[in-house]
């Protein structure tokens, strides 16, 4: 994991002091509310429906035990004893008081954390593959790139007043677990076929929200050394030419769409050609300095199969099911990556209590080389677990209510906070997720259905990523009543796709039955070992639309 040096430490401390000064200037009237708003947003402070909300950056989803314990402490001392992990791998507290925020920022700085640029019209917290450094399909670890971008984007003098927010994601694997194509910039590490050098494939203009777009590739092979200059060129073109007349048309995806990806790429390349790369880019020693923090940890030499694990699996079907569903193959023999589900039936997706955070922190310290990850699917990962430790981990997780075996299954729902918390929401999200989880609570049935991603957003801003859900659910408000639009066929992975609307909106209580009907079509029509999304691609929307029309309606 990256560790702050004296400069990083000083920067974060100065940000805390700066925020305290900004609050003081707001309170004495020097700053108007209008002027203060972007300043507080750039430090993660939102004014929500019931209270202030504080969004804490978890850069590229990486945490250690000490950091998670500090989040648990903050949750206990300044919130209601829990926090909410988001689809951008951040942590939100929903009930802090404005007067406590400087103290919270100080506690975060103590453990090398901050809230810098978790909101506002600036470059946001960068995200990456949650199995970085671990996954077998990885070409190169994306975290050094993500950390370099974290530093480069922090307090950028030129790009802090952009037309709109700007999100960057990085992956170094074949499977795109970072949803890079739904980001303003997606970076994919890949080898050049001729030189075998690792380069970046750069896509621009992806995004969800009310106008969902899949990012377009503007550079197939960008040499790694040119990264920061190339990012500067993209951001400058966007800052100068992105629309500022309409907030809903201000993301870079609209500019790319309006002038075309080729013209956008041409303007970026023209700007890039005028830049003096060596005066902008990080020198190779700096890149190496950062990369050294992400060198593989000291793994033990272990057999590929653990007898302890195999015996426990044979003896306990519930444990065996959890191992099958919640673990991912690791690069190193004898190790595995465990995904801890924050989606137990009936709870708000992504919520964790302070006690649960401490349990997970203890497990990370004891069994995962003091490392943790947050996933964009709002779960946690123990990335370096010895196979033989799985039974002990599972028992501890079970006692904490964290042993749900549903990763990637129908109840592993991504959901925004919705109308229960959010000032922008037009409908509730969490109760819909809970109702679907209850409907499909039977573990055996979930496994039989197999991988199926349901994603729920409580308004068109699409924080719940519904556009790229295999089944997407969008909560709207029609004449004072919540109405849920169902989409089908979205995909967040390397075959990124936007889902299509199945039919008229549904009442909240009709949603579980509609999901049931869609799943029934899949189960009836699927080929041997064919996943839900593959079946949807093969069959098209027609059979699902037909079934959808038969959903019983409460009121016509």
């Amino acid at each position, binding site marked *: 994991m990256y560790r702050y*040096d004296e*400069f*990083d430490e*000083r*920067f974060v401390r*100065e940000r805390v*002091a*700066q925020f305290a*000064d*900004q609050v003081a*200037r707001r309170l004495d*009237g*020097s*700053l*108007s509310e209008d*002027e203060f708003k*972007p*300043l507080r947003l750039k430090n993660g402070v939102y004014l929500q429906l019931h209270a202030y909300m504080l969004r804490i950056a978890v850069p590229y989803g990486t945490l250690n035990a000490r950091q998670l314990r500090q989040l648990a402490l903050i949750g206990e001392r300044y919130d209601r004893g829990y926090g909410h992990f988001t689809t951008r791998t951040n942590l939100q507290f929903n009930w802090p008081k404005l007067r406590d925020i400087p103290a919270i920022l100080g506690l975060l700085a103590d453990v090398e954390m901050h809230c810098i640029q978790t909101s506002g*019209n600036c470059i946001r917290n960068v995200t990456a593959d949650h199995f970085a450094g671990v996954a077998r399909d990885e070409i190169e670890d994306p975290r050094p790139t993500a950390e370099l971008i974290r*530093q*480069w984007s*922090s*307090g*950028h*003098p*030129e*790009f*802090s*007043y*952009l037309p709109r927010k700007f999100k960057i994601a990085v992956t170094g694997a074949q499977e795109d677990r970072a949803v890079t194509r739904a980001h303003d910039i997606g970076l994919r590490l890949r080898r050049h076929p001729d030189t075998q050098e690792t380069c970046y494939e750069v896509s621009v203009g992806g995004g969800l929200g009310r106008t969902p777009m899949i990012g377009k590739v503007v550079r197939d092979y960008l040499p790694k050394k040119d990264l*920061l200059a190339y990012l500067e060129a993209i951001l*400058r073109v966007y*800052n*100068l030419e992105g629309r*500022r007349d309409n907030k809903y048309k201000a993301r870079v995806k609209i500019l790319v769409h309006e002038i075309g990806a080729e013209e956008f790429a041409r303007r970026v390349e023209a700007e890039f050609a*005028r830049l*003096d790369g060596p*005066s*902008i*880019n*990080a*020198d190779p*020693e*700096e890149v190496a*300095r950062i990369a050294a923090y992400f060198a593989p940890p000291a793994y033990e030499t272990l057999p590929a199969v653990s007898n302890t694990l195999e015996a426990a699996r044979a003896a306990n079907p519930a444990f065996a099911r959890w191992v099958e569903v919640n673990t991912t193959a690791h690069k190193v023999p004898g190790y595995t990556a465990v995904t801890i589900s924050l989606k137990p039936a009936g709870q708000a997706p992504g919520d964790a209590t302070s006690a649960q955070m401490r349990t997970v922190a203890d497990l990370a310290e004891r069994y995962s080389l003091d490392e943790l990850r947050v996933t964009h699917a709002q779960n946690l990962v123990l990335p370096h677990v010895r196979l033989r430790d799985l039974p002990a981990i599972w028992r501890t997780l079970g006692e904490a209510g964290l042993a749900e075996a549903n990763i990637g299954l129908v109840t592993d729902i991504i959901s925004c906070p919705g109308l229960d918390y959010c000032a922008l929401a037009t409908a509730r999200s969490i109760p819909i997720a809970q109702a679907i989880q209850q409907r499909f609570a039977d573990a055996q049935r979930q496994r039989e259905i197999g991988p199926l991603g349901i994603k729920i957003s409580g308004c068109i801003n699409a924080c719940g990523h519904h556009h790229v859900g295999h089944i997407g659910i969008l909560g709207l408000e029609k004449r004072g009543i919540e109405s849920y639009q169902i989409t089908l066929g979205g995909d967040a992975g390397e075959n990124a796709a936007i889902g299509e609307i199945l039919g008229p909106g549904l009442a909240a209580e009709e949603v579980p039955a509609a999901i049931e009907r869609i799943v029934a079509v899949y189960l009836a029509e699927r080929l041997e070992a064919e996943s839900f999304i593959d079946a949807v691609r093969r069959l098209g929307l027609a059979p699902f639309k037909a079934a959808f029309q038969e959903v019983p309606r409460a009121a016509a």
Partner: protein
Amino acid sequence: MPLLDRNGAREDGWTRSEGAAVGNIPAVIVPWDSLADALAQQGDGRNIGVLIPNSLAISALAPFLPRLALVAIGFPAYSDGRGFSLARQLRRAGFAGELRASGPLIPDQFAYALACGFDTIELPQANAERQPLEQWLRARDSYSLTYQRGYGTPDRNILDRRRAARAAAAPGPR
């Protein structure tokens, strides 16, 4: 209107003209629309500057730069950051005269404006009264060091400082 530079308040030696008329004024800022006319009647020893909208492309201004002593970029709102990029492009194009940010900026943008190449900030009277000079100077110094290379002096850049530390630690030639 009140004027600031990196050291604090500053007297404005420039006069604003509403049109192309430059008369015998020693240093006059004309609107972009009137620039060509103003330059045509420029007298010896007279300085001309221009106020440009932040939507202007650098390519449109470039031919005039050698004859301009000042470029003021309009900031219609503090939240509109186009001027920061335009300033960078102007400096890259070799403009060495005074670069001025004109509009309702806030103190928290002072350091950014200086880093992007601005020399001065020209504020509306009401903003300057609400946000006194000492707030601007304090905000200017919020960060002792920054991460972005090429935006100011290397001794205030974190990457350059790390590089210098590495060089100092490495065994040098004897």
